[in-house]
């Protein structure tokens, strides 16, 4: 039975992806602060703050000690805040970087070592189209996800020869708690910019992640029909 760790599996995209993998016969560990997730005999919730390096290492060690092999890690846990960059409090920036970037880094380090020992594994880091769009009003969020994309590209090169594939996958707005604070007009405008006026459903996002997983290219891969050219 293949085995995955998904961070932020208690709701939203992580929950949907966990449900899909479980339906396809995977064993899934959901790492999140709230130890909840899909009701399924092959799902196990692990209560952990991914921003805490020692806590992450302990949680991953406990799986290793059980002899568990991890085929796939999806770093999905994320936080966002809508703020003009000049008005974003330092504590908010630190909090977003802690979850989005440090959390991804800690998980990649701890699970990546397991995968190096296994000489195989796949790591998918969830990003966002807000990075190539340089989306105004989301400076801390965009910066944290840009950092995730940079980490992904370095890790992909460092770990490839050990049989570990690392990639980043990004989406436009999906109807989850993360986009709850965004107005309908902003969502419509953003979806227009990326050529997906109908928006992106959780099912479409899950399908895209699995397509990228099969292809094993570092990316970043964006579920978008169009993206603006970089500055």
């Amino acid at each position: 039975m293949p085995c995955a760790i998904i961070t932020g599996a208690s709701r939203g995209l992580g929950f949907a992806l966990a449900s899909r993998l479980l339906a396809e016969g995977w064993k899934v560990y959901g790492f999140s602060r709230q130890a909840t997730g899909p009701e399924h005999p092959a799902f196990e919730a692990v209560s952990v703050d991914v921003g805490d390096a020692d806590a992450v290492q302990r949680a991953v060690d406990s799986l290793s000690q059980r002899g568990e092999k991890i085929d796939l890690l999806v770093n999905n846990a994320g936080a966002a805040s809508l703020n003009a960059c000049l008005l974003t409090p330092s504590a908010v920036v630190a909090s977003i970087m802690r979850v989005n970037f440090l959390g991804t880094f800690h998980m990649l380090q701890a699970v990546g070592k397991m995968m190096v020992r296994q000489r195989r594994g796949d790591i998918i880091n969830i990003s966002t189209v807000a990075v190539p769009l340089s989306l105004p009003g989301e400076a801390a969020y965009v910066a944290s996800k840009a950092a995730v994309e940079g980490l992904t590209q370095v890790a992909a090169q460092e770990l490839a020869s050990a049989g570990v594939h690392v990639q980043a996958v990004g989406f436009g707005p999906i109807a989850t708690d993360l986009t709850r604070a965004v107005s309908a007009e902003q969502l419509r405008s953003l979806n227009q910019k990326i050529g997906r006026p109908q928006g992106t459903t959780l099912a479409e996002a899950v399908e895209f992640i699995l397509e990228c997983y099969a292809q094993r290219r570092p990316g970043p891969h964006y579920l978008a029909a169009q993206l603006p050219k970089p500055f």
Partner: protein
Amino acid sequence: MLNRTQVAALVFRRLALIGQELAKPELVQADEQTRLFGQASQLDSIGLVTLIADLEQDLREATGQSVQLVNEKALSRLTSPFRRVGLLIDYITELLNKPA
């Protein structure tokens, strides 16, 4: 806790396994002067990462404790503990036997 002889046995066993995997007889026959990174090393950067990851697992199994070989203290040493096999054995022995 493990003494230096026991740590050395773990390290040489792991080097031999990686040497077989990478088809590098120099690692199979490593001694305390064998270089682990830099010029004249038989390990590239991912090879060193693999050695460290494997050794952490070996040490966890041998001691029942989680051991992190790479930490700020190790990185700040004037002479890297990852330069030569003998230095690595010394470092691991010290790490395992330091007062709690």
